[in-house]
């Protein structure tokens, strides 16, 4: 019988340095479909697995601009088009008074786009993920660091990859069942 199709091969490391080095080696070895996991953000790690730029900033910028324009246009439309009323002798488009709200709308939209942009790009929420099948993976939120080479990687091969990872000095290596 054929073995279960697996999701990937997971290697465990003790320190940030180890996992970063390992990741760099892996990419150098030509693996492209890999990922690394850590209890806290490690800039080098993202670099190491070849993840260089993310779209969050752009989304935020767009959100901010939308908020700003929307905020001001709303007030302008209400006060000059929809229902212009004489308030304390002020002109309908008393724009200086509209600045505070415009500003707040900018912040609000930018902020929310940043958050939801991040979540969407990260594909969260994703309660189920194969890597959780590995019992030791729960330490990823404590003090352990993991490197995974996905079975979808063209160079992936159960035997070779395991050997390769051992070569990286992983504490332990386990198959990630899908």
């Amino acid at each position, binding site marked *: 019988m054929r073995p279960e199709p697996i999701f990937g091969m997971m290697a465990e490391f003790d320190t940030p340095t180890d996992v970063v080095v390992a990741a760099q080696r892996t990419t150098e070895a030509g693996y492209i479909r890999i990922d690394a996991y850590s209890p806290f*953000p490690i800039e080098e790690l993202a670099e190491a697995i070849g993840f260089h730029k993310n779209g*969050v900033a752009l989304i935020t910028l767009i959100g901010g601009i939308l908020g700003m324009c929307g905020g001001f246009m709303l007030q302008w439309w209400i006060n000059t088009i929809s229902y212009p009323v004489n308030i304390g002798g002020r002109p309908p488009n008393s724009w200086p008074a509209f600045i*505070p709200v415009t500003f707040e*709308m900018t912040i609000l939209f930018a902020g929310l786009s940043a*958050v939801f942009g991040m979540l969407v790009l*990260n594909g969260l929420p*994703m309660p189920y993920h194969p890597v959780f099948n590995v019992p030791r993976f729960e330490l990823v939120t404590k003090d352990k660091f993991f490197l995974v080479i996905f079975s979808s990687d063209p160079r992936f091969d159960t035997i070779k990859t395991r050997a390769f990872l051992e070569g990286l000095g992983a504490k332990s290596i386990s198959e990630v069942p899908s």
Partner: protein
Amino acid sequence: MVRPTEVEEGEDKAPVLAPGHSFASITDKISGLVLKRPLHLGWVAGFFVSFMVMQGVLFGATYLFVKGVGIWGVNIPIGWGFAIVNFVWWIGIGHAGTLISAILLLLRQSWRNSINRFAEAMTLFAVAQAGVFPLLHLGRPWVFYWLFPYPNTMGYWPNFRSPLVWDVFAVSTYFTISLVFWFIGLIPDLASLRDRTDNSFIRFTYGMLAMGWRGSARHWARFETAYLLLAGLATPLVLSVHTVVSFDFAIGIVPGWHTTIFPPYFVAGAIYSGFAMVLVLAIPIRKFYGVKDFITDRHLENSAMVMLATGLIVAYGYGMEAFMNWYGGNPYENYLRWARLHGPYAPWYLALLFFNIFLPQILWIRRIRTNPVWLFLISMDVLVGMWLERFIIVVVSLTRDFTNSAWGMYYPTRWDWAVLMGTLGMFCALMFLFVRLLPMISIFELNTLLPEAEVKHK
């Protein structure tokens, strides 16, 4: 650079993080507070008491809706009383949280990492309290939604020239941003709790909240960007919020309100009272939850120094206000200055000066700065002082305005006090729940402070 765990040569400051900790120890310690720590009688008692006090709001609000806002001391000419005073005060307290989590983050102040979490919680809960008052103080609270621009059958809209509408936008934005900022900061720690617990229900709950966070390097990258951007946005936001709040007065023509200096010194005052509240919370917490390792004397001292600085800015504000009243030669402003010092509310004003300006000066003394008991007392004093400041600004200004014939006095009723106390109760109750149910210190951010977190390049 100097590691937070170490101390510079010759410098006799406490470290930001007590030495001898590892990723594991920090994680276990903090998650343990939520998962392992048994339910102490102290917590139960404290929660019960604050929950009872919280009823003040519920009774107060119920009776208010039944009878009308007249149950409060407000009248003509003093149209705004405790409600607005408390509103400004609570909002101000909220500001420290954002300052710590956002501004100090941008300034790369590593010591923020161990206090930002509960400071942010404090922000949320304080703003929640503040939010109660604008609603309650309305004559007809049941039509509060007219302050929002929603498509309505009247074809009529809010008046965007009114600072109160600015308030609506500023405060709701502030609350929303603070909430998401706080929540995404929680996600990795929720995941950590998910993985630490043995109880399947707890695991399921935290698992849901953690949204399947797995610490992927890609996720971390985007996470960091978003977090940083939020900090960058929250910084101008927090400044704008109290500026807008100060506009409620500065835009008005009432003597004592109509002052351009309000925005800066409202913000300074906000941070002043905010840090006072941080200390009032931090000192007992680190004692009862034994997290002195994470919230060290260094934190207390830094906070104290921030208070000292902002306190001086506030003092400058008072001075400048009085000077301008005199120098500006406006008879109404000038009379108000006189009335503050000699009028019926003079004792309140003098008390304000003592609490806010004179007493805190002892923070210049190092020994006081590092003594939790003293700090706790002074923080309390500042909280009272800042409340008084808002009382002087809001109420006393209104008692003596332009037309002598319309001068009046303000006497708070039992219901005014009930609601104020009630919000204090609600605030404490929420804090109790928070420290019980969520990691009160950011685990992952604390981890990054450890020397091991550094990647050594070979």
